[in-house]
């Protein structure tokens, strides 16, 4: 075990019977979204059925690893509300509206972002941070190029 893994104090996403395909994809640095075969709505986060129509006819769509978005909203927290965040303040939490699927918004931190540069509409890109030997966490970074 590396030092980085023993040092990880933050909560690690709990997999359950409904969300496991999302987190399994994340562990492989990929995005997977649950989609309804009947009404075509996406459910993010995923659940036991389609959150829009209740259909059990849901499957996971693989979106790959080239995921871009824009900031739909955000908060900047100056106090840690959970273990592990005390050394990385302030924490930016942002809702990213996916370019590929605009009806889906995904909440992550924005890493490597100065607070003064943060604004609604700002382009961001998904990255995956290895937090333990077998787990990875999707995150946003500014999409500057």
């Amino acid at each position, binding site marked *: 075990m590396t030092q980085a893994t023993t040092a990880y104090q933050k*909560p690690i*996403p*709990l997999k359950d019977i409904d969300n496991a395909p999302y987190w399994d994809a994340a562990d492989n640095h990929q995005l997977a979204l649950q989609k309804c075969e009947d009404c075509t709505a996406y459910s993010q986060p995923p659940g036991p059925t389609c959150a829009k129509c209740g259909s059990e006819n849901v499957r996971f769509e693989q979106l790959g690893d080239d995921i871009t978005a824009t900031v739909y909203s955000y908060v900047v927290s100056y106090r840690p509300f959970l*273990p592990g965040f005390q050394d990385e303040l302030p924490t930016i939490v942002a809702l990213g509206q996916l370019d590929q699927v605009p009806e889906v*918004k995904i909440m*992550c*931190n924005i890493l490597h972002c100065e607070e003064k540069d943060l604004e609604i509409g700002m382009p961001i890109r998904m990255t995956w941070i290895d937090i333990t030997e077998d787990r990875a*966490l999707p995150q946003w970074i500014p999409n500057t190029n």
Partner: protein
Amino acid sequence: MGTIKDRYAIVGVGESERSRKSGTTPLHLALDAARAAIKDAGLKATDIDGFMNYNEGDSCTSHQLATYLGVRPKYVKDIQGGGASTEMLIADAVALIEAGQLNTVLIYRSLNGSSGTRVGRGYDPDMLQGALAGGSFVIPYGSASPSQWFGMYATRHMHETGITKEHLGHVCLSFYEHAQRNPKAFLHGKPLTMETYLATPDISSPFNIHDSCLELDEGNAIIVTSAEKAKDCTSKPVYIMGMSARQCHPHVHYWNDIDQVASDYVAKELYENAGVTPDDIDVASIYDCFSWVVMRQLEAYGFAKRGEVGDFVAEGNLKIGGKLPTNTAGGMLSEGYTHGMNNAIEIVRQLRHDYEGTDRQVEDCKIGICTGWAGPDIAGAMILRN
């Protein structure tokens, strides 16, 4: 379908002491609040045949409260519920009385919100991931406080409607001003200026400590009965004109869907049931866990148009003497925090004209609104009259 309009009343309200550290249990606080409400109504404890409370695993049970009041009621009910539960349980009480099951119901909320479990300070991470719907999609990102969840709504809404930090400050200043007239308000004697407000750093944007409700130890109780039975009480009855409640989000993970709130849907049915419009409302209790939550509800309940809410509060309309005196005891930002029930108690006292002859009374008020917010996704509200 029949209407319940004006056929049910709130006949008693009461509270315990409020403090940072009660040194006692929620059962003791609930007993103090219940005894005060029963006395206020001029009833005996044994006149109450239904007891209900809402909690987040931080209260005593209705069974305990009834037992130690010396009552063996017909009906006890404890729900896990948020800040719309006062209104929703009053609706339950009315329904049970209407069904002939009960005569008189006491509803309470009691908690050591400061010295016991704290709502806003985060939780054990794994517990919350499991306990909170979709928790594993927010907790790993450090988002564990309602200030962060509702803040996400606030940032977007302020961006779209032009609401500024200073506008939020006007909400705080208005309620703090009311608290200075209320000797029992926790922040009585601690007035707030805009200069101080704007100089106070955020805890989590866009909220600083003044934008956030207090966390205190206290108990509150409310007694509901039929208009017929209200005649046997010594208090002035405050009649229920209309009620409505609503869960709106198509997804339990409401933080992905931040453009609507349940209050948007409650408002229409509420006014229809009560047979009034926003212009008829003389006094208001608007759920105020955070300053912005008040702004969003002022829009939802039609007191100011979207985009004009900032000006509405800056003009002083929430103050006593303004167009819509709101949270006249100081609200949860500056009076106390019982998850909404203290605001419901205040609207009852205003409509009874309990403060007649003082600068706390909203002169000649006849109709009031009380709104609850159990998050963006669940709302309950009622309109009352004297």
